[in-house]
């Protein structure tokens, strides 16, 4: 009598969690923008047996954005998930895995991320500032002023903007713009950049040095600008930065698809 098929996997079974962990590490390792995502819930899992020790696994994952930029060397386990009131960003991913002799590999993945709705945030926290829109001029002005301010004061290398991660604007009681953006070290010192900034290019991949900045610009009741940048130092293996060496400024909209 043929052996009965194994019972379907539950979403909280250890094997499901192992598959989900592998999938989340793959997604973070192949994403080039924004922040790392952490697993919030395994929505569904389906296993199709291909043969002895050979399964295809279909996963539906619910992820949440963490505060760690995607290029940060911080292990995911140490990355804090952004709270609901900080305007959380959710990721929905469908991942197709293969498991052969206990070894996982990703066959395909498709993710969509989106910020939580403003209405839901304001239901819970009426005064919480919300994520600014993608091309908000106040955000772009704040980032530009903050990076210029940092480069004018640093004795290290001149930093170029890679992308704006997120930004929020509060209008009451004070008018404050808070923004986070990724930067890369260039082949110029800040002093050299003053003479010829056009010659300052991102360091080549084998010397790349990325970092992250956080800026707070108070516009009212009085003007103030605080900038804090942290460089990670050269990371080996550097991620596939071909997508990161674009010349322009991009502001990653929370709603984006990656496959």
């Amino acid at each position: 009598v043929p052996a009965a098929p194994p019972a379907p996997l539950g979403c909280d079974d250890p094997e499901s969690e192992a598959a989900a962990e592998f999938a989340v590490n793959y997604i973070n390792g192949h994403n080039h923008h924004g922040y790392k995502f952490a697993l919030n819930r395994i929505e569904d899992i389906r296993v199709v047996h291909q043969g002895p020790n050979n399964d295809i696994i279909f996963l539906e994952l619910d992820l949440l954005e963490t505060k760690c930029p995607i290029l940060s060397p911080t292990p995911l386990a140490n990355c804090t998930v952004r709270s609901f009131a900080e305007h959380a960003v959710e990721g929905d991913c469908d991942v197709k895995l293969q498991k052969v002799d206990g070894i996982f590999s990703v066959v395909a993945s498709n993710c969509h991320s989106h910020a939580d709705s403003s209405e839901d945030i304001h239901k819970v926290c009426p005064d919480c500032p919300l994520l600014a829109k993608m091309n908000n001029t106040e955000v772009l002005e704040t980032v530009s002023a903050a990076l210029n301010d940092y480069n004018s004061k640093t004795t290290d290398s001149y930093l170029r903007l890679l992308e704006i991660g997120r930004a929020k604007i509060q209008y009451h009681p004070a008018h404050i713009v808070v923004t986070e953006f990724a930067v890369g070290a260039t082949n110029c010192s800040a002093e050299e950049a003053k003479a010829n900034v056009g010659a300052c290019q991102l360091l080549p991949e084998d010397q790349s040095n990325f970092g992250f900045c956080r800026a707070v610009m108070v516009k009212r009741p009085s003007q103030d600008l605080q900038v804090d940048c942290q460089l990670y130092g050269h990371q080996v293996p550097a991620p596939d930065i071909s997508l990161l060496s674009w010349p322009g400024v991009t502001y990653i909209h929370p709603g984006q698809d990656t496959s």
Partner: protein
Amino acid sequence: ALTKKAVAEAAQHDKVPRPVGFVPPPPPCPGKIRHFDI
């Protein structure tokens, strides 16, 4: 001849009586929420 009524009665008899306080296992999916539900 097997009538529908007979099958229904048989099915009744076959139904395994649930022990008192039986709690069905939680559905296998979706799984637990680790942080918060959006």
